[in-house]
């Protein structure tokens, strides 16, 4: 029996792959559409028997992230696994299949007055995709990321073994926590079939405080030296303004749930938005507004978030209105992490690197958790993308604290740069991969160090 027949014989729906099924430019031969963990296992057993490499996908929103797979025969599309088998509101716990979108899950949970307290910045992301990439949004400051809210997981390994860890209770230390290991593993250890999360009650109220860091217009003549580098005063003044105000906000006993910043272009104003949730949200927002008014302009309380809230930055569009850049295959997206004290510097870093590399950059992210996303225009010349990444990394990783990861870049640019940057413990990671997927059949080469 050939591989296609063997896939068909599992009873799982299989079709030939098309243009839309490419994984970072690599086209699989077939797409399998399993409807249960057992069906995923059946597909994986066929892959094992016929030496096929498989890549899992959910909403397909981030398939162009990461390196292309070195082999890609079967795309395991989990879109049919879109049920929420268990939501016991009284337990504040939900179990969802991997193909459920976070939006659909949110609707189900809202009926019970609850939520999964994550803000997923890419619309259409599924539970499986959320876990595989470990992406998070503004409220990571308050609730952590997917790994902090995941309490149980069912996975299918490369040989078709179905295994679970954790469970459906929040407090549980029985056995190793495979959920942590699989979160952010880019599908290289196994395929996530379902996940159980701890939930939070929907907050009684939410309020946002927004404020602007004005571009100084009068002091742009003298160059400004910041951390040994010459800058224009625009960026340094933004840094100084943020440094003066933000620590007081994040450390405030008023307990904001998120502190975000949006800076769509170095020429544009920079906006800060703070979320307050729970009882007395409006009252607390008002107090934070006063605090922010001390160093920022136009501080005001709003009942709705700014339009950019919880989304990845749109790349600047040269000679066009900002905010119209699109995602897709040309997306150039980086993630920057740093420690709180380096907040202002790490936030300004992308603009320094952009100036040095001759590109334009948009930055958005968390001033509280010190994780920022940087978008460059999709048509940025590959050499400049690499130069930008190198400059940014030199700035961020200089003291060993910061990290820069290239989440998405077109192939021509990606070839010229190191996507992952500084990685500790790579030998141990390779050993984990070797144990879970000894024949390298799951998303081979997609992850760091060629894993």
């Amino acid at each position, binding site marked *: 029996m050939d591989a296609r027949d063997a896939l068909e014989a599992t009873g799982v729906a299989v079709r030939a792959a098309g243009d839309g099924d490419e994984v970072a430019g690599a086209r699989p031969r077939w797409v399998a559409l399993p409807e249960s963990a057992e069906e995923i296992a059946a597909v994986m057993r066929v892959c094992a028997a016929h030496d096929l490499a498989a890549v899992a996908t959910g909403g397909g929103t981030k398939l162009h992230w990461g390196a292309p797979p070195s082999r890609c025969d079967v795309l395991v599309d989990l879109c049919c696994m879109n049920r929420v088998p268990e939501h016991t*509101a*009284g*337990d504040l716990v939900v179990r969802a299949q991997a193909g459920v979108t976070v939006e659909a899950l949110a609707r189900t949970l809202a009926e019970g*007055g609850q939520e999964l307290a994550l803000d997923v910045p890419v619309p259409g992301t599924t539970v499986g995709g959320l876990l595989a990439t*470990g992406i998070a949004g503004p409220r990571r400051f308050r609730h*952590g990321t997917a790994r*902090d809210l995941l309490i149980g997981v069912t996975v299918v*390994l490369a*040989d078709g*073994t179905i*295994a*679970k*860890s954790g469970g*459906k*209770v929040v*407090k*549980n*230390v*029985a*056995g*190793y*926590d*495979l959920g*942590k*290991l699989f*979160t*952010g593993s880019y599908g290289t*250890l196994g395929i996530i079939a379902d996940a159980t999360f701890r939930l*939070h*009650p929907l*907050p*009684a109220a939410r309020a946002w405080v927004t404020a602007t860091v004005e571009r100084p217009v009068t002091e742009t003549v003298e160059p400004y030296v910041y951390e040994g580098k010459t800058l224009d005063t625009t960026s340094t003044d933004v840094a100084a303004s943020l440094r003066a105000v933000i*620590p007081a906000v994040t*450390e405030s*006993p008023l*307990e904001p749930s998120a502190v975000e910043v949006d800076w769509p272009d170095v020429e544009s104003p920079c906006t800060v938005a703070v979320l307050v949730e*729970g*009882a*007395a949200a409006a009252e*607390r927002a008002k107090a934070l507004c006063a605090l922010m008014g001390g160093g920022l302009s136009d501080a005001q309380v709003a009942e709705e978030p700014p339009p950019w809230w919880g989304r990845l930055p749109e790349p600047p569009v040269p000679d066009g209105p900002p905010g119209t850049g699109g995602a897709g295959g040309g997306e150039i997206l980086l993630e920057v*992490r740093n*420690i*709180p*004290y380096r907040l202002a510097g790490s936030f300004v870093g992308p603009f320094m690197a952009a100036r040095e590399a001759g590109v334009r950059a948009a930055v958005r992210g968390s001033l509280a958790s010190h994780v920022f996303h940087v978008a460059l225009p999709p048509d940025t010349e590959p050499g400049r993308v690499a130069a930008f990444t190198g400059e940014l990394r030199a700035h961020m990783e200089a003291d060993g604290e910061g*990290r820069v990861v290239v989440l998405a870049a077109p192939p021509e640019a990606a070839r010229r740069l190191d996507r992952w940057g*500084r990685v*500790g*413990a*790579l030998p*141990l*990671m390779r*050993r*984990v991969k*070797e*144990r*879970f997927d*000894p024949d390298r059949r799951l998303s081979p080469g997609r*992850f*760091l*160090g060629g894993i």
Partner: protein
Amino acid sequence: MSELERLTARLAAVLPPDAVVTDPVRLRTYECDGLTHHRATPGVVVLPEAAEQVAAVVRLCGEHDVPFVARGSGTGLSGGALPRTDGVLIVTSRMRRILEIDIPNRRAVVEPGVTNLAITEAVRDRGYYYAPDPSSQQVCSIGGNVAENSGGAHCLKYGFTVNHVLAAEIVTPDGDIVELSAMDPGYDLLGAFIGSEGTLGIATKITVRLSRAPEAVTTLLAAFTGIEAGGRAVSAIIAAGVVPAAIEMMDALAIEAAEAAVHCRYPAGAGAVLVMELDGPHAEVEHQFAAVERICRDSGAFEIRVAASAEERAAIWRGRKSAFAAVGRISPAYIVQDGVVPRTALPRVLAGIDRLQEEYGIRVANVFHAGDGNLHPLVLFDDAVPGEAERAEAVSGRILDLCVEHGGSITGEHGVGVDKARYMPRMFTEDDLDTMQLVRCAFDPRGLANPGKVFPTPRLCGEVPGVRRGAHPLVEAGLAEQF
């Protein structure tokens, strides 16, 4: 000469003077942790003062194929630090420096022997604290907390050790010193390491997140005539969207014991009490307090006390915190159990425990973290009465069965250790356990790090289960060895 003796002879060369214990009397002081009915005198004890020394000892263990066990303060309740008579016990009690307090970056870097409470004490003046608060926090070590993924009464709102550790320097079972950091891209090895009970290596330096002390804290005690009413109140509080920092429940027998031990003066006639703590911004706590008070009254609370001072807060907590030790006043011996059930299953599980008490003629005092369904039944028995210890052990095991039947866990915070390894197959399939074992084999292919804990008779790392048969290609190619 045994391998252990050969190894012991080489230890002095890699450790400072007085860091190797071979005297039988001193060795016996390490024969158990907080779970005292499992005892084993360690082959040799070492007291390293630095990561390099830990690494050197672990490398020697590898060379001589001798198992090693790490121990912090020895307060664990599952025998996770139970020594091996044929192995080395690596005690971190001399590694107790706080290396860095970094308030602007909200973190502290500590050695593994530092006590949990010492971190909070070091930063309290600055308005910060270290959130996980296991009840042994005055003595338990951070290294032990990392090994066990310790929680505490306040983990309902604030999470566990794994949610508060930013990085760890570890000595791998190969004897390498490796940094695992939440900042790094790649697999979340830090998350996998925390809670692995010393089976993946030994943490030698830990970076913890510091939390901002809340603006307001309100502690209250509500007394009910029975445990059902208390349980209803807990459910209603959660349903109302309130996430208290802690909700603890004690039943009549536990209250009686606490009263005898520490005179906590909980309301007379209480069949159950709830100890609750609300914290956060003033305005939020006020709102929540009003809701909680109303719900408790509606659920039948006949008395509600609110702590008006730090002393009153401590008084309310005294009864709860003393509960484990206090049952010693009303029973010659007892087993502390640690199981978890989904909160909605609490009434059924408690009814099940009642039936077990009748069936076996054994009393059980119930103390639990009601907010997250974490039960600590205290199974009381008289070891002087023939057969009673066995009956108590049976009740204790049946309680775990109840937890698993209702979708819960065999341990919420005490760990599996040596005590519950045999219960793991009740919760996990062979495939589940084999898959966890893959992690173990990646870190510790020779199984020298704390063997015999967590997993019941695990496969050797060479024994590949499931579909795969025959030699691994890398082995055939001479690129790897199987053990």
